[in-house]
């Protein structure tokens, strides 16, 4: 066994550092959640105090439920995030497989072209995107957001996945070919399960910016029926008065689904049946 890992002092220090980091990372979330259950005055008087009998209040949640269609916003965010992730993973993995598996003219150029998107922020093209969406009549639809987010996520997905797919054993794919599997079956049944950890990484990387994005919902889909959660919460933030109770309650509720999705994906990160396929 590794000497450094078995030393109790090292182990304690390591755990201490990790626990400290966890506390720092979770602290803002914690503050948001406790304050969402307090009345307005107590939020400002003692922002770090836990809600007690005197300061406990659900006013923020009540405001959120009453004002605007919170569940619709929630549903919109969920649809956009899940659909975008689905398309990013599907198309990203397919492109990555083609780039890593097949020798064709312009393979390298195509790979570079696809990776270029990592370096150029998609927001630079906002005006052109808006014009395109207007021309195609997609403004104020969830499709506008899904398409833009898919485009935004693809470069990194192709880049990461093609690296991982190069590591999938050629013998395994060839065994499939000799056994008469089609290229699609080889891709879906043999290769995808083996790059699942990489897929989960890509999903996590893409999920959070999409869920939290304010820019594109504000520009491409600001209509009431297509508002996302982040955009919907903005009604409580005014230029002069901000309804902090409502903002904190909305944020608390927005954290939950991301957490659930994260747990689902991170479980995939754990390598399971993949070991023992080759060697």
């Amino acid at each position, binding site marked *: 066994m590794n000497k450094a890992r078995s030393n109790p002092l090292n182990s304690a220090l390591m755990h201490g550092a990790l626990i400290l980091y966890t506390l720092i990372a979770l602290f803002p979330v914690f503050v948001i959640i406790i304050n969402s259950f307090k009345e307005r005055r107590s939020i400002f008087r003692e922002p770090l105090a836990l809600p007690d009998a005197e300061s406990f209040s659900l006013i923020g949640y009540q405001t959120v439920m009453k004002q605007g269609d919170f569940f619709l916003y929630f549903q919109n965010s969920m649809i956009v995030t899940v659909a975008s992730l689905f398309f990013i993973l599907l198309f990203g993995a397919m492109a990555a497989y083609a780039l890593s598996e097949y020798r064709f003219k312009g393979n390298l150029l195509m790979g570079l072209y696809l990776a270029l998107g990592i370096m150029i922020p998609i927001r630079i093209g906002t005006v052109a995107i808006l014009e395109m969406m207007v021309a195609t009549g997609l403004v104020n639809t969830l499709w506008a957001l899904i398409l833009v987010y898919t485009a935004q996520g693809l470069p990194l997905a192709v880049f990461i996945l093609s690296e991982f797919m190069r590591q999938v054993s050629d013998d395994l794919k060839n065994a499939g070919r*000799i056994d008469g*599997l089609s290229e699609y079956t080889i891709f879906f049944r043999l290769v995808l*399960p083996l790059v699942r950890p990489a897929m989960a990484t890509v999903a996590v990387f893409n999920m959070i910016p999409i869920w939290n994005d304010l820019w594109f919902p504000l520009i491409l889909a600001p209509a009431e029926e297509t508002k996302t959660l982040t955009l919907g919460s903005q009604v409580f933030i005014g230029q002069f008065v901000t309804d902090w109770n409502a903002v904190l309650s909305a944020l608390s509720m927005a954290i939950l689904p991301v957490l659930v999705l994260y747990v689902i994906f991170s479980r995939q990160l754990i390598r399971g049946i993949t070991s*023992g396929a080759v*060697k």
Partner: protein
Amino acid sequence: MTALTLKDVNKSFGEVHVLKDINMEVEEGEFVVFVGPSGCGKSTLLRVIAGLEDATSGEVRIGGEVVNMTPPSKRGIAMVFQSYALYPHLNVRGNMTLALKQEGQSKAVIEERVQKASKMLNLEAYLDRFPSELSGGQRQRVAIGRAIVREPKLFLFDEPLSNLDAALRMNTRLEIAALHRQLGATMVYVTHDQTEAMTLADKIVVLRDGRVEQIGSPMELYNNPANQFVAGFLGSPSMNFLPAGIVHEGDSRTLGVRPEDLFIAGDGPLAVRVSHVEKLGGDTNVVGEVRDQQITARLFGQHAIEPGQELRFGFKPEAAYHFDSAGARL
């Protein structure tokens, strides 16, 4: 009948010419071993036969039919890979039956073939296990089983033993030999290990730099190598090569003598200073130097020889091989 015919097969990857004018015939039921140092193109040749790579030019015939344009699954072949290449998401039974299901065989046929193959390979107890739950030797047997159930015209083995440890390698080698006798199938086997080649093959194909150096039975190649490369590649320890001038003044040829053909002789022509002795019990390998040329002798039995000792080695004239400066046999 001819099971496999290769005619002027060439393969290039871009500028790199990997296989050069390969011609050979494999008879039905024959066990053919491709052997050569790494990078000689033997695996590429196997992949061309399998259809995983296309030949740049030339003709590949399996069972008399030209298969250049036939996809791997329709060529009537089965392949066993060095890395086993088992499907990680399927259990042993699933691994063995996948190809048959793709072919659309009936359930009864599939079941019967799996039973037969798993009995042959002692895999019956493992049919419901997943590859990750098997040892290396078991995985290799599953990979072989996956090939057997297809009842192919041609078995292809790509260095199937190189991931196994020495003891298991010997056992699996014997199993493969037994399997070949039992099935009577045509097998093409790639290895860089000359022991595997010598022990398994009916016919050995020695490859170097994408060219066939010599084709023949193991003993033909051992007794009658066509050139210095084949002579040096087969046999262990490998043949000694010395300037023939050491023995006969003024002889410019290269002299080749196998280590097992050398013996201690007081009046022998080779004066050797011993630098190392390997005592194996049954044999003794003596490594020494003759006028700065390294020489190895394999003596039968046990000998009390120590490093630093001066010895004289002799050999029978019929055990001597001669090669010209380009390596061709004279």
